[in-house]
C-alpha cells in the first residue's frame, strides 16, 4: 500500500445538516492508469474527491495525496493535483486563451503550451469567449487546464455528466491519451458505467458513503458471474431489464457478468435492490 498516491483511512464526512456523505472509507489508489469512481447520485463521490482536493475537511479519519494531508497542507497537496470540477464553469468575458493565461498566473509551472496544444488538437477556438463554447468544448477546456498543471494526479468529478455521447467519447479519448503519455494517475467519477468501462483499468463502487467494491476492472469481470436462479452466496439480487430477478455471484454461475451488472449488483447489496438500465 505504500505506492498508493491517493489514500483514505477511516474517512468520514458529515455535513452540517447531519447527513453522512462518507462513512469509514478505506481506500488506497495506486499510481498509474485511470480509476473509475462509480456510484449513484449522493453516493459521496464528489465529497471524496473534494476531500482529496482539500475542499472538504474530514469529520473523522484521514485523506492523503502522495502522503500529504490536503486539509492541513493544501498547497503541497494541490501541487500534485489537476482537478476538473463537476459542471466546470468558465469565466464570463474571458476567452479560452485568457483562461490559459489565468491558469499560468495562478499555478507555478503551468504548461501553457501543452494545454494550448491539447486544445488545438481538438480544434477548439482559443480566441472565442469560453462561455460561448459548447458543453463538450467547455469540458475540454477544463480538462486542458487540469492537464496543463502537469500534475501526476488528475481528479475528475463527473465531468461527463452533462455531455452528449460524442463529447463524452472525445473527452475520454483525450484523458486516456494524456494519462498514457504523461504516466499520470486519474480518478474519474461517474454514475454512467458504460462510459468508463473502456477507459478505466480500476473500479471503485461507492454507495451510500461506503466502498462496496474496489478492484481492477479485469479482475472484477473475471471473478463475477450471473446466476439466473437464487443462490445463497450471491452478492446481491437485482432486476434484469425484462424484470426477472438475477443474482450476482463471486465465482462460477450461469453466464459472465458485464461491468454494469457488477456495479448494479454491488449497489443493490448496499441498499437492497436495483433495476438494470
Amino acid at each position, binding site marked *: 500500500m505504500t505506492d498508493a498516491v491517493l489514500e483514505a483511512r477511516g474517512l468520514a464526512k458529515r455535513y452540517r445538516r447531519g447527513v453522512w456523505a462518507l462513512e469509514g472509507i478505506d481506500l488506497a489508489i495506486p499510481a498509474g492508469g485511470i480509476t473509475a469512481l462509480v456510484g449513484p447520485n449522493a453516493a459521496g463521490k464528489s465529497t471524496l474527491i473534494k476531500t482529496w482536493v482539500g475542499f472538504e475537511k474530514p469529520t473523522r479519519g484521514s485523506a492523503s495525496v502522495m502522503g500529504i494531508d490536503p486539509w492541513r497542507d493544501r498547497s503541497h497537496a494541490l501541487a500534485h493535483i489537476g*482537478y476538473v470540477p463537476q459542471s466546470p464553469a*468558465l469565466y464570463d*468575458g474571458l476567452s479560452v486563451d485568457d483562461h490559459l493565461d489565468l491558469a499560468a498566473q495562478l499555478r507555478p509551472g503551468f504548461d501553457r503550451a501543452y494545454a494550448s496544444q491539447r486544445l488545438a488538437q481538438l480544434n477548439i477556438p482559443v480566441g472565442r469567449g469560453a462561455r460561448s463554447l459548447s458543453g463538450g468544448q467547455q469540458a475540454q477546456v477544463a480538462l486542458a487546464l487540469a492537464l496543463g498543471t502537469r500534475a501526476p494526479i488528475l481528479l475528475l468529478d463527473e465531468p461527463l455528466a452533462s455531455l452528449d455521447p460524442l463529447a463524452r467519447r472525445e473527452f475520454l479519448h483525450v484523458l486516456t491519451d494524456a494519462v498514457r503519455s504523461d504516466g499520470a494517475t486519474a480518478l474519474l467519477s461517474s454514475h454512467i458505467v458504460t462510459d468508463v468501462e473502456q477507459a478505466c483499468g480500476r473500479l471503485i463502487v461507492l454507495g451510500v458513503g461506503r466502498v462496496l467494491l474496489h478492484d481492477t476492472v479485469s479482475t472484477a469481470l473475471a471473478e463475477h458471474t450471473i446466476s439466473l436462479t437464487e443462490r445463497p452466496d450471491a452478492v446481491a439480487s437485482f432486476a434484469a431489464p425484462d424484470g426477472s430477478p438475477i443474482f450476482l455471484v463471486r465465482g462460477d454461475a450461469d453466464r459472465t457478468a458485464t461491468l454494469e451488472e457488477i456495479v448494479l449488483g454491488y449497489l443493490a447489496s448496499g441498499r437492497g435492490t436495483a433495476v438494470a438500465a
Partner: protein
Amino acid sequence: MITTLRLVWRMQRWEVLVLIGGPLLLAGAIAVVAWQTSVTLAGLDTCYAATGGALSTSCTALVQSSNGMTGLSPILVGATTVAPFIVGILLGAPLVSHEIEKRTAPIAWSLSLSRVRWLAQRTLPLLIAMAIVLLLLGAASEALIRATPPGELGFRFFAMHGPLIAMRGIAVFVIGVVVGLLVGRMLPAILATGLVVIVLLIGLQLVREGMMRSEAIWTAADDRDFSGVMIYGSAYSDDTTGQLVTDEEAYSRFPDVFGPQGSAKPPGLTQVYLATPPERYPIFVARGIGELALISLIAAGLAVWIVGWRRPDVG
C-alpha cells in the same frame, strides 16, 4: 502585472467602467465646478470693487452663474459622500461571491496553490484603482468646499472630502469581500454588506459624536468665526462672575432686550457657544482615517482566514 490587469478588465469591464469610471467623471465635474466657482467669485469681487454696488450686465451674469454653482455644490458634495459606499459595496461584495455563485471558484482554487495569493490577485487591482479614484474625488470635493463661501473645511463637512472618502471606500470594499466570502451569493452579499456598513457607520458616528462633544468648550461668540464648527449648545456668560447663564434665564432677565425692538445683546452677558474648536478638525480626520484603517485591516484578516477554510461552492 499587465496580464493581471488585462484579466481583471476582461472579467469585470462593466464594474470597472461604471464603478471606477463614474466616480472619476464625478471628480472631474466637481473640479470643473470648483474652478468655475473660484473664477466667478473672483470676477464678482472685481465687479463690486469697480462699480461700488451697481452691477453691470456682465456682472449680473456672473451673479447668476455664482448662484447656479452655489446650488450645484451641495449636490456634488452629497454625491461625493455617498460614492464610497456605493462603489465599495458594489465592487467588494460581488467579487468573491460571484466566483462562488457562478462556480468558477473550484477551478481557480484548485489551480492556485495559495488561496490568499488568489484573493490578493483578485482584489488588489480593483482596490487600488478604487482608492486612487476616491482620493481624486475627495480632493476635488475639498477644492469645491474651499471655493464655495464661507470656504471652511470644518466639522460640518466632515467625511465629505479629502482622504476620508478613499478610506471609507476601502473599508466598505474589504467588508464587502468578507461578507461575499461568507454568504457566497451576490445579491444577498450586497444587501448584507449594506446592512453591516449601516450598522458600522451608526456606531462610528456615535463614537465620534461622543468624542467631539467631550472635547467641546464654551467659546465667546465674538471670538471666532463659527463656520465649519460643530455647535452643541448656546448660553450666556456673566461678564463679572464668568458663570454660565442659560438662554431661558437670559430671556427672562432681559425680556425687552430680546423683544421685537431689542438689540438681543443683554447687558453684562456675553453669548457663548459650546463647540468643538476647529483646530481639532485635522485630529478628528486623522482619527477617522485610523479607525477605518483598523476596520479594513481586521476585515482583511477575516477575509484571509475565511478563504482558507471556505468551500468553493455555495452553502
